[in-house]
Structures are given as C-alpha cells and as structure tokens.
C-alpha cells in the first residue's frame, strides 16, 4: 500500500533538467507555491527538492522569499516570471509519475476508498498522524485530503476536533435518496436542450451491441455516470449541480465498497437506465424525469436492502492503521 515514490526526487529531477537546459534562467525566483501548483503536488516535496538543488549549488537563497536559479555569488538581479508560463520540459517518466495526478489526489483516492469501505462497519476515528505516516506524506497533504473528504460529506468533525467516519445508516441512505428524488428529475428538466444527445446515443448503441460473452455484463455504474455527466450535470445551475454531486458522493463511495466486499450487483438497474436513455434520446424529457423519479424510488429500496445484507460480513475489514473503531462502551 505504502507509496515508494519519493516525490521530492521527482520534483528535483524536473527542476534540475530545466535549469541545466537553461529554460529556467539564472536569477529566476523559485517559489514553493507556484511550483507545487505546476507539479500538482503539495508543498512538502517542493521544499525538499529545493533543498537538494541548493546543496547541488544549482540554486541559492537570497534576501527575499524563495530561491534564485544559479550559484550563490552570481550577481544577477532577481527575475520574476510566472513559472507556469515558461513552458518547462518535464521528462516523460517524471511527467507520468508526477504531472498527471497530484499527490493529494493519489492519496485521496486511497483514503476515500478505505473510508467508504469502513463506514458500513460502524463509527471510526481517523488519526491524522497515522494517515500521514502510512502514506509518507506531509500534514499539509493530510489536511488537503481530509478537507476534501469533509467538503464532500464523507467524514465529519466532532466538537473535540476529531475526524470521524460513519456509521452509514439506512436513515442517511434514505434521506440522501429523498434529496436525489427532489433534485435530479428537476435538474434533468432544466438541462433540456443542453443534454449531450450524441453521447447518450453512443451509450445506447454500446449496450445494444454488447456481446456479454466477450464484454461481460453491462455496468450500471457506468450508465449512471453517463446519466450524470451528459444529462443531469448539464443543468444550467451550478449550485444545483454541486448539491447533487455532493449528495451522491457518499452513496457512490459506499456502493463501490459494498461491491468490493462481494455483494451481488443489481441486474435490473441496467434495463432501467436504458429505458431512461431511450426516453432522453427521444427528447421526451418530462417522461424521462418522471421515469427517473420512479427509478430512484426503486433504487433507494434496493440500496436499503443491500445495506442490511452486509450484516453477515463479520468483523470490519479495515486494513489501514489510521482508522480505529469508536466503541461506545
């Protein structure tokens, strides 16, 4: 699980090659923040990388904030440019490791999946320091990750400032589905002409021509994603779209976790999405909105049924040291 990539080395390598090639000119001011932004990482590895380059005498401190490119004693005046606009060359392998996804995103996905997997087992506390140690990341990254989980409604903070997760109750599932029924059909109506009909037609075509022997069964989660991306999130009301997105987040995370535990998938759901797509493709948006509302009612019941059956899975399979069960005794 633990990441062995030393991110500060990747950052150092990327900066080094651009200093050597002259893309980063002598006297250029290097600041942690913009570099971290460019490299999509936290500040900690950038700090470490800059210290390495200083030791290598490729950069030096000066009496302002940050570092200057070049050896100490060179008399060049500080040059200030937006590093993002200098067109830095970042070698492919470094780019692949670093550029594509930020560090916090990599950690985020693992934490989100661990958290989603545990919340069906009860109430857990997240220990920040353990989390940082486990992934080998700074407190800043830990806070970014937890902040994002908090913002997405997946974790909460107690009055004593402890991060807690779960338990996922039927009550909260029912309430979130109620919100879905209130918002999503309306968002679909509002989206109207903005719906990406071409993409919906493609999804329909993909499922109509599916060969289960070769391609396996249809994935209802993918169909749901298509419905969100191409239809509902096209509603011309960003606030509404954000509400819908946030409301769904813990449901989707828990659903993925339950599937990973081996719970059976809903085979009926696929045909319901296809019916919905047919209506949308025919531009029968009002009918589609009503159908969606009924579909969500049925889906809520299925989710509640699914949540009950997880009870036969005995002890929590948590597997990460930063999540500890909160016992009420």
């Amino acid at each position, binding site marked *: 699980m633990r990441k062995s990539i030393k991110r500060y080395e990747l950052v150092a390598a990327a900066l080094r090659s651009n200093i050597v090639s002259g893309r980063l000119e002598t006297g250029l001011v290097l600041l942690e923040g913009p570099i971290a932004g460019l490299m999509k990482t936290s500040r900690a590895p950038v700090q470490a990388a800059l210290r390495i380059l200083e030791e290598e005498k490729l950069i030096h401190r000066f009496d302002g904030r940050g570092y200057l490119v070049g050896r100490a004693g060179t008399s060049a005046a500080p040059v200030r440019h937006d590093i993002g606009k200098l067109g830095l060359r970042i070698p492919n392998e470094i780019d692949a490791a670093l550029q594509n996804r930020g560090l916090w995103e990599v950690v985020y996905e693992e934490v989100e999946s661990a958290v989603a997997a545990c919340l069906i087992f009860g109430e857990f506390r997240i220990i920040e320091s353990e989390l940082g140690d486990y992934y080998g990341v700074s407190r800043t990254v830990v806070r970014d990750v937890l902040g994002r989980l908090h913002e997405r409604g997946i974790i909460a903070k107690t009055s004593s400032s402890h991060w807690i997760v779960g338990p996922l*109750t039927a009550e909260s599932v029912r309430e979130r589905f109620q919100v879905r029924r209130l918002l999503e059909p309306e968002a679909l109506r509002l989206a109207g002409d903005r719906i990406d009909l071409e993409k919906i037609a493609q999804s329909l075509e993909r499922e109509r021509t599916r060969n289960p022997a070769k391609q396996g069964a249809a994935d209802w989660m993918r169909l749901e994603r298509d419905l969100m991306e191409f239809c509902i999130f096209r509603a011309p009301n960003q606030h509404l779209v954000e509400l819908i997105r946030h409301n769904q987040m813990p449901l989707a995370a828990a659903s993925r976790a339950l599937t990973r535990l081996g719970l059976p998938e809903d085979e009926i759901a696929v045909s319901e999405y296809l019916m919905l797509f047919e209506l949308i493709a025919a531009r029968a948006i009002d009918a589609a909105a009503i159908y969606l509302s009924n579909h969500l009612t049925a889906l809520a019941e299925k989710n509640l*049924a699914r949540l009950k059956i997880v009870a036969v899975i005995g002890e929590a399979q948590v597997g990460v040291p930063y999540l500890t069960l909160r016992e009420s*005794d």
Partner: protein
Amino acid sequence: MGRNSRRQPSPSIHRQRTLRVLGTDISLLEAVRFKAISDLGFNIEFEVLDFPNCQRKAALNPEAYDVYDQCFHNLAIVWFWGALQPIDTAWLSNWSKVSALTKSGGVGKYASRGFGDAPMHKLYVQPDHSLGPEETRHIAMLPTVHNFDSFGYDTRVFNTDGNERESWAMLFDPRAQGKLALVDEPAIGLFDVALAAEAIGVLRFENIGNMSPAEIGALFKFLRDKRKEGFVLRCWRTGEQAAKLFRDGDVVIQSMWSPAYNELGSATAVVKEAVPAEGYRAWHGGLSIARHVTGPRLRMACEYMDWWLSGWAGAVMARRGYYMSVPSTVMDYLSAAEWSYWYDGQEASEDLTGVDNETIVVRRGARRSGGSYLERARRIALWNTVMDEHNYAARAWTRFVSSVNGKLR
C-alpha cells in the same frame, strides 16, 4: 462415456439422490429426517447450525445446500444475497391449504398484525425480483413452523401470589438482577429488550419494528446500563442452552423457545411461560430452495417441501410447541388429546409425550400458556424482524453480546 468414467466411478445412485438441507435445530430433527427418507425414497442430509452461522452460510455459500430451512425474517438477508430461487407454487400441492397468517398477515380481520416484518411482506416474489405482499405465482419461502414467543420465569421469584400481571418489563425487574439471560440473535433478542424497555416506560419507539439509529443508540445505552447494574448474565443461541440455564438455577427469567420448556427437568414445576400484556414476539419458519438447484434435484426439493405440509412433520413440531402453516393435515397425525392441548389450548386429558414418544412433557390437567392457537395468534406485538438499520443494530448487538459472554471465556 468418456475414458475417465471407467477409472472414476460415477456417483452412486444413492449419492445422486441426496437432498441437502441447511437449517437450525428448530426443525431439523433426526426423527424428521428418517421419516422423510422413508416416505420420499431419497436420501436427505441435515446440516444444523445456530441462527447467525446458518444465515451467514446460506447467504455466502449457497452451493453448499439445496433446501434452506429458516425464518422468514432472514430472507431480508439471504434472498438479497441472491442465494435463493423463486418457488413456483404450482409445484406444491399443499400450497392452497397454507393459512391466512402468512398469506394475509393475520389469523382474522381484527387480529393484531404486530409491528415489524410479518412473513407476508417477504412471501411473494415481485416482478422486479424483490419480495412483497402482492400475490404472485412465485414465493421465496414456503411457510411451515411458527410460534408466538415470550419469556419464561421462575414462579418462586415472580408473581408469587399468582395475581401479578405478566409484562416484558419483568426482564429488568430488580428481582432479575444477575439472573437474566437473552437470546443471542439481533433480529430476536434485541426485540425482547426493546419490548421490555418500552413496557418499563424508559424508552418509546415510533415504530418498534423499524427503529431509527437514534432509537437503537438509546436502546443500547439502556442495555449497557443494565449490564453495568449486573442484569444480563448470559446470551444463548440454542434452546438447549436456555433449558440448561433454568435447570442449573443460573437464571430466574429469560427469553425462551417453546421446546426448551420440554427440557427443564426438575425445573418444569417452577418455570412458567409468560403471556405478556404487551403481546408476543412472533416468528415464522419456512423452506426455500438454493439458486443452483435444477432438474431432478429441484423436484426432490419440492417433494420434500410438500411433505413438510402433509401432517406428519407438523405433528412432531406440535409436540415441541410449534404450529404449522397447514393445521388441517397435522390434526390427522395428533391424538385428540394432543390436538386439544397444543392447538386448542384445552386442559390435557392425559399425560402427553414429546417428540421421542416416551418422555412425558405435559402432565394431565395442564393447560397451554396463552390458550388456543387463535388466542395466541391474535396477540402478536411484533415479528422477528431484520430492520432497515439491521447492519448497524446487529454490529452493536454483537459487541454487547461479547461484553456479556466475554467474561465467561
């Protein structure tokens, strides 16, 4: 015939004709198995587990059995794991005789339906493959044995004047301190505690059959407090364990299952089955078929299920205090004295024996607690239920039980 068939002997006829039944000791008795084998002409194997383990195996390992003999309430778990298949009622000749209790939820128009999940809500397979009360041709479980449970208490400790009202509140009466045991199954024992807490008046549930997380939290706080006061001595999983607790004098009051009253030995005279003012906690058993069963084995499964309703097995169950979903056929296999005691709630006109046809379990002149079948069936407070919050409640229950029984290890 392939080459291998010579080296590897083909399964014997005997083996091909074996039906594997997974269930609990509520109904899977050796006497029943022997009689079914001789009546049906094929071999039958029973695998007997306690409630939680039986349910877990049924859900996660459906290949390991052909027929599942358990309670309706745990269909909420096992059916939705996709472990079972719909049963075509057209294959069951006794289906039409099954009583109204499971088909319409009560024994009469004005009989109490009770809170929680009555079997009818899990009986019929709906078009979307979920379970519901709307009649369809296919069912998820064939209703068989059932009962209306309460608790047993030591008459030397409680109700010594014979006039005291019987109530679930007695479970947490000061006289029960340190001498109370509960059945360890979250969809059962939890409700004994809930009925008691409500009867005492310390808690009130909006719907006792489907509690909210806050209500479950309050219930467990109540239970933990009571444990700290030293109330709960033990949590048991089988009727045999419950009977032993009374025989050994370890408890004075506890959850009870009907056959355990037949096994009390010298404690029989002092232990009474309560008729709680609030009503009974009802349950209903039945038979389901594993998803994988097809062809000849499917026919065997259906024959076995029909056989259960044909009377002989129902008579054995009656001697354990259980009722059958088709009482009319049971009558043919019980003596008049047995029928009038077990089903009609009349005084026993003679000594009655138990399942072994030897041991006397009812003395002449005794009267079944709660009266006749209809009297008892009209007084259902709630059904054993897998609530919406079952996952949450069951985990809290497991922690509670290990805090009680953990001291023993």
